[in-house]
């Protein structure tokens, strides 16, 4: 039994029950959930978009307000999944013991991890969508192709869910998440092209940034929002999917170790 963690996860369709549980809870807590996901990006958009936008004008042929809105949408999808996968999953795993209750039913750890990842991705979509609406209302979006960015929010959430679940499984307390947030989430937010093109960074920094997933999320979302032609969509989608797949296997191993002892 000692090699259980090395077996590939085998989730079943019942994983959707975990997703359903979270959706039902989210519906009850929709107010605080939205305020948390919505407030910060909209403040950035208003403050930096209107403020800096006056000086910057256009970046790569896109008005700065639109450029920034697209970056913030990608960052929001990243943040929503990351915080759900760390804080909420940790709460369900420890304080609430939700998973202990669920593991007494026919559901397994593989179902829990699959369900949680699908949920993180869904929440990225649900909580990022209002920002898209606000960006449209503020005049940042002029193209119907922006609607095609919506499924990308889901994909971005799926990509960031796995690492967040690994963090949750490794944490002794909520404070542990400061490492991940400070060392990965915030640097990605600043360096991966939310506020300016990655091409302005030194070459070595560009390599690092392109290994991390947020720049690929932005490379998909920004052209769709701005009505430009997508460059290398297959590559960017493949990177996000690869993170999701590796993240799922890693999260299954870590969460199993935490729950099945």
């Amino acid at each position, binding site marked *: 039994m000692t090699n259980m963690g090395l077996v590939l996860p085998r989730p079943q369709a019942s994983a959707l029950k975990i997703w359903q*549980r979270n959706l039902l*809870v989210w519906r009850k807590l929709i107010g605080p959930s939205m305020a948390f996901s919505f407030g910060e990006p909209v403040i950035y958009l208003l403050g930096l978009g209107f403020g800096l936008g006056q000086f910057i004008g256009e970046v790569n042929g896109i008005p700065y307000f639109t450029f920034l809105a697209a970056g913030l949408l990608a960052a929001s999808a990243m943040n929503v999944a990351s915080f759900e996968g760390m804080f909420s999953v940790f709460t369900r795993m420890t304080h*609430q013991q939700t998973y202990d*209750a*669920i*593991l*007494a039913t*026919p559901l*397994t750890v593989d179902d829990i991890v699959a369900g949680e990842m699908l949920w993180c991705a869904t929440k990225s979509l649900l909580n990022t969508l209002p920002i898209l609406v606000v960006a449209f209302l503020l005049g940042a979006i002029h193209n119907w192709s922006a609607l095609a960015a919506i499924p990308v929010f889901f994909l971005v959430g799926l990509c960031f869910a796995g690492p967040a679940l690994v963090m949750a499984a490794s944490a002794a307390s909520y404070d542990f998440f400061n490492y991940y947030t400070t060392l990965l989430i915030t640097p990605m937010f600043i360096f991966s092209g939310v506020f300016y093109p990655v091409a302005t960074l030194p070459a070595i920094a560009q390599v690092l940034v392109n290994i991390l997933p947020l720049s690929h999320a932005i490379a998909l979302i920004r052209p769709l929002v701005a009505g430009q032609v997508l460059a290398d969509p297959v590559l960017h989608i493949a990177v996000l999917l690869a993170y999701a797949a590796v993240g799922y296997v890693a999260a299954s191993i870590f969460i199993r170790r935490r729950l099945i*002892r």
Partner: protein
Amino acid sequence: MSLAPGSADAVVLARGLTKKYGERTVVCGIDLTIPRGGCFGLLGPNGAGKTTTLRMILGQAPMSGGTLSVLGLPMPAAIREIHARTGVVPQSDNQDPDFTVVENLRMYARYFGLRPAEVAGRIDELLGFLELTDRRDARMRELSGGMKRRLSIARALINDPEFIMLDEPTTGLDPQVRHLIWTRLRKLKASGKTLLLTTHYMDEAERLCDQLVVIDRGRIVTQGSPRGLIDEHVEPHVIEVQGETAHVVPVLGNIPGSRLLTVGETHYCYARELGPVLARLESAPQLRYTHRTANLEDVFLKLTGHELRE
């Protein structure tokens, strides 16, 4: 797996069940045969390995050694099927705090693949059975400890399980709730379900269990029926005295046919014959005593010692 005679219909059949955490062996190769029907007790001091054993039977703790079948199916290979036919009342209540009573039951039913419409009648029945009908729309923070516990039991029954595992079901509850829970557990027993119960309340074990094992330091110390164990291990008369050892031992020590056990400031004098003990007590009128018949707690103290366990 080779089956012991008469164990073909066992609900739990464990042989050499072992659990190690690193170098520490928590469960040291125990054999368990839990027959179908009735209530089986797993007793032991804190840290004896009760919860770990329960977690292994449930597949939440991988075995380090031994073989295990539950409901005739191999664990962990058939874990999904075993869980579909099992109910679990965990040691600490873990309902969803964001759901109401009835929402908790509906969601839990979904985990078993049961649709809310299918279980609506069953939920009403269970709420009635555990006297929670008027709390059906209450949130978890509005429930008392006793109500949460009853909800845990209702939730464990949502899939109409054949086998119900209860980990210290009445710990921390007031006497009224404990009696209510005991009555319900006896009804479940009477309806043919198999109960596996851990407790360190000996009165609870004596009331509910048909068979029990006492485990200590990961090993089975003894097993049998509560009555059988009392008759086997303990003298029929027990005199309990409160007081300082220096005052009690000279009076009750060294009486032929009796033995004296001290736990904290309580002294238990176990006697085959009552006469000699009472004669000694008459000579020491300052000592207040109670005379009672032997119970399971006496067996427990005798077999697991009286030092503090944490």
